[in-house]
């Protein structure tokens, strides 16, 4: 699959800030300018690396990396978050825009009645590494100073993380991980309830985290959130104590192994589409994650966003460059 074309920032900028136009405004024919019938607009499917960086230059963003094997619920988490906003505000945050509305919509389609499917599901994200695709969401607090927060989510296939798990060399090529403010490691509860699969599932997750740490892709300021995805599988098995003990043991082992190296290690449970436990609401646990992303102070990574050679021309870029350099003066430049 070809890398999608770069897209300029589209979501409303703060008043007064410069914005990029659509592509191809005019052509010159015979010395005279001819206005085309149509102006191309951003495709909005997803942002590639360049487009994501371009957005991050114009405003502070939270980089959120969703990591885990195929079919562990990474994309479903994103679609359920978007679906929640389609019906209401979430945890005191309102939807404020997105540069990737078609991208969200396309991913939501197979869980909508319009798809004609009898049961909801999510299309699988295909491998297209090493650079990720991003989905963008802008939210605004409904209280206090009503601050905006821009979230950039990776949407990459599980295969990509399998490579990273097995090789620190491969892992080091995944620069986007280093940029993460939040690193979500998905542990699939559907496998967690299967006695013959759960420890292998855990070992794979642990190995991925180990590889990312050993290759120095996860920094001390990154929040590492171990997410029990598809938690409805555990809820459905509620009466079986050994499942609870398994989770306790997993969390204990992860704390013991990585607690020293990951200052911000937390655990969450989500059931984005709780088909196994209908008593849970759609997007169970997702609002809590959103609140976490929205309330965590932004730790800028200027060395990733602005290489030494970068010279932003727009006022917003210059402002952002000044802002980032002042807030990240303690960090070492990326050689």
């Amino acid at each position: 699959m070809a890398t999608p074309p770069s897209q300029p920032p589209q979501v409303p900028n703060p008043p007064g800030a410069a914005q990029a136009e659509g592509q191809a405004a005019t052509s010159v024919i015979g010395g005279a300018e001819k206005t085309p019938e149509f102006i191309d607009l951003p495709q909005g499917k997803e942002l590639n690396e360049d487009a994501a960086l371009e957005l991050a230059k114009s405003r502070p963003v939270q980089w959120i990396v969703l990591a885990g094997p195929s079919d562990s619920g990474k994309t479903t988490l994103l679609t359920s978050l978007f679906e929640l906003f389609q019906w209401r505000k979430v945890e005191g945050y309102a939807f404020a825009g997105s540069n990737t509305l078609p991208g969200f919509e396309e991913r939501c389609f197979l869980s909508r009645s319009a798809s004609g499917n009898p049961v909801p599901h999510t299309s699988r994200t295909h491998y297209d590494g090493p650079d990720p695709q991003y989905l963008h969401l802008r939210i605004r607090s409904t209280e206090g100073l009503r601050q905006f927060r821009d979230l950039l989510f990776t949407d990459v296939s599980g295969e990509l993380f399998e490579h990273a798990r097995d090789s620190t060399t491969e892992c080091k090529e995944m620069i986007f991980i280093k940029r993460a403010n939040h690193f979500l490691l998905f542990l699939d509860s559907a496998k967690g309830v299967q006695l013959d699969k759960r420890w292998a599932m855990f070992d794979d997750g642990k190995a991925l985290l180990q590889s990312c740490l050993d290759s120095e892709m996860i920094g001390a300021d990154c929040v590492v959130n171990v997410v029990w995805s598809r938690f409805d599988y555990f809820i459905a098995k509620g009466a079986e104590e050994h499942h609870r003990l398994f989770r306790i043991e997993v969390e204990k082992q992860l704390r013991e192994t990585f607690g020293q190296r990951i200052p911000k290690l937390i655990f969450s449970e989500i059931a984005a589409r709780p088909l196994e436990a209908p008593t849970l609401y759609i997007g169970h646990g997702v609002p809590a994650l959103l609140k976490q992303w929205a309330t965590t102070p932004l730790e800028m990574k200027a060395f990733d966003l602005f290489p030494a050679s970068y010279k932003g021309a727009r006022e917003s870029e210059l402002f952002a460059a000044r802002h980032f350099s002042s807030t990240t003066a303690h960090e070492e430049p990326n050689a």
Partner: protein
Amino acid sequence: MKNLTHNHFLLIGLHDTGKTSFLAALWYMVSQSGTNCGLKLERLEGDSQYLNQIRDAWSEYRPVPRNKADLEKPVSMLLKDSATGRVARLGFPDLSGEAFKSQWIHRQLASTYDRSLREATGGVLFVKPGNIIKPHRIDTVNAVLGNLGVNEPKPKMKTQDKPWDSEQAPTQVQLVDILQFMSGRSYFQPGFRLAVVVSAWDRVTPKDRRPSDWIKTELPLLKQFLESNEDLFEVSFYGISAQGGRYALPHLTSHNFDNAKAVAKRLCEHGDSISAWIWQKLEPTSHTTLELLRDGGQTTELERKALAKDFNRLMAEPDFFDETRFGEVELRPETEALLRNGVLRKNDKKLYLTRLLLEDAYPDELSREREHADEALGIQQKLPAQRALVVGDGVKMAHDVTEPIRWLMR
């Protein structure tokens, strides 16, 4: 302060959201003397033919003709506020909604629309109840069906996936993206005034609902977006019924065949030339339904609906009327008058005539009942200037469709 004469507003919205009906009512109100209307026409720039056509339809209380190809030449109205003397230009670059659809689906902005937008300081955004695509999830729909006791067991397996159809994306998502494109243009000025109009407001229940509450409930993502971006868009909400109620359309409905033994008998026997022509043109499923009706058998609502639909298709056919075929039929004076006036050649009126012809051909057999006839009669009896209904915070005159534009001009 903005130059008063440089206020330029646009009518914007997706396909079939009430823009044309609103424009018809507006054109009537601002161009007539003696109407209780806050704005008056200073002058029209461009051709008034289409505006007059939709105004006539509106004042005669029949559906305004859709303009599929859109106005070939730009037309705009210069409107003057009688109270303040302020003048504004109202443009309507895309009545069909195609340019807006193209932004979402084809990711292209028409240059003509872009030029209009460049000059605009505000706009009227239309949404229409009953014409909204909602983000219904399969699991919630299944749960609702389950609660209603109509849920059939669903196989827990994946079926062949249909590709994503962007046209089926929720209305609120499409509208948000259109507003994002608008605010993303380099010339866009924050503080853009947006009058959000919920059209066909007469269909909204309960009657005391506020338009802003309706948007919050029915299009929550759009409402959140507008609230979050209050610096970019200054918004006011209106509910407008430009026509005041529902039309009594000439189409046949299933109810016209509730007691249809007599008409079914004539059609099944097809002993006269009109019945023979109709029988030959009808679908085989309609034959079956008519035979059931003739024999006094039970027919379902679905079958009668399909039969009505088949008849409506026939009524629109170019050769429905034939002098020889209708030679033996005694026509009512109003039918003859419409025939004389060449209504058969007028697409927006033709069905009214063919319905009369059908009734004349089956005077004792076919029900003459028209859907919403009482409601339509009540509206028709009002003066045109009293038909429209306008609600919203700050609305002063409940029949004045210029209220949103006056808010934009304030």
